């Protein structure tokens, strides 16, 4: 690859590293695996960069990259199914990330956050990913459809179901206390 081509790739795709890591991290719930997946996804992205330019949507490197991250994570999940199911939720690292993000909310936000994490954790991967793509990455329904490979109607119904389940879990939790 020409050095200028690599620079182009880096300029378009590297700025979305945080987004890629966020998605991989919430899909795998494990820092180490998320890092491996992101690295793998970038290699794939480099390989298919020609095809991406062919679409002429140069402004949308993010959704394109996230689709690759998402597919890499799913391939990885199938390959390591046993590991994935037994991976412990990494509460400490998540908490640290939150503490950095907003120190003011740490004191009184702890239990609410924990409840939300557990509720998210209980969602199936196809529901968790639409929540992450919509709420954390801010993607449109169309983009979420492109990333996950389903029609917009399915995106809409998955989001509705995911949110309904989250609300039910949170409500049960409140009533249980």
């Amino acid at each position, binding site marked *: *690859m020409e*050095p200028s*081509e*690599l620079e182009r*790739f*880096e300029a378009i795709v*590297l700025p979305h*590293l*945080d*987004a*890629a*890591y*966020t998605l991989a*991290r*919430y899909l795998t719930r494990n*820092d*180490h695996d998320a*890092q491996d997946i*992101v*690295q793998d996804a*970038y*290699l794939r992205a*480099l390989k298919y960069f020609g095809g991406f330019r062919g679409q002429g949507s140069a402004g949308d490197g993010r959704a394109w990259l996230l689709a690759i991250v998402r597919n890499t994570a799913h391939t990885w999940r199938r390959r390591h199914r046993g590991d994935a199911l037994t991976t412990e939720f990494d509460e400490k690292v998540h908490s640290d*990330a*939150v503490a*950095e*993000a*907003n120190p003011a*909310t740490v004191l009184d*936000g702890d239990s*609410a*956050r924990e409840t*939300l*994490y557990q509720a*998210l954790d209980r969602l199936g991967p196809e529901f968790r990913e639409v*929540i992450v793509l*919509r*709420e*954390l*990455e801010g993607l*449109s*329904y169309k983009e979420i459809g492109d990333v996950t490979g389903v029609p917009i109607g399915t995106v*809409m*119904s998955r*989001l*509705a179901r995911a*949110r309904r389940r*989250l*609300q039910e879990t*949170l409500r049960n939790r409140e009533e249980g206390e």
Partner: protein
Amino acid sequence: MTHRELELQLDAYVDGELAPEDARELEAHLSACGDCARLHEARVALSAAIREQVPALHAPDALRQRVRATLRDAAGTTRVRWGLPAVATRWLALAASLATVAVGGWRLGVSRADEDALAGQVLASHVRSLMPGHLTDVVSSDQHTVKPWFNGKLDFSPPVYDFAGRGFPLVGGRLDYVGGRPVAALVYGRRQHLINVFLWPATRGSVGGGPRVATQQGYHLLQWTSPEYAYWIVSDLGLAELRGFAQLLQQADSTVAGPAAARPLP
């Protein structure tokens, strides 16, 4: 509009994805129906709670470096190209007729091939250190923790400095193996960048002058020899800043070594 219909459209409405006429119809219903209005409020509150409590994350710096390194590796590597140090270039300009003058004073007994091999090892070690869990054996920003850690692990005690005040905080240290011998690797930070400093006792006569610079796979390598140590530093940091860091190291070394060297013999 029935409750069932509203629930189907509510998320799209909250997400701003509903067609304008549908949105107007839904709003009319919300203003008339307390149950649905509460449902709507709950959805909005849930989205806000997720955004507040479940943050988007920052990729670790080590991952950033590792991805860059991997991409450059995959895109094809280039051979090490040594640039002439500025001092040598000036010297050559002044003494252009003296073609036999060595290019700087730095080739004392070390062949170009040896240098290239060392550069390759140093770079490989730098990239490997960026992989998760490989960066440091001892993690501390305290030079008085890092320096003694090497006791008993090396046959020399590497000088460890704290340049936090100058924007290069100490991250830690580790043992590494370069050029067929165990060496000290010290890690310093600069914003999101990491700098690996490799050093081991100099084997030959001291060599002055500015550091030599090489660039490979987007990394800069600087190499020089103080009276006591052979130094290699490598980073993806900009060359100017990396030179500044090398200067800090050289100054610190000369400050430490200076008075002792100047002390008259009894």
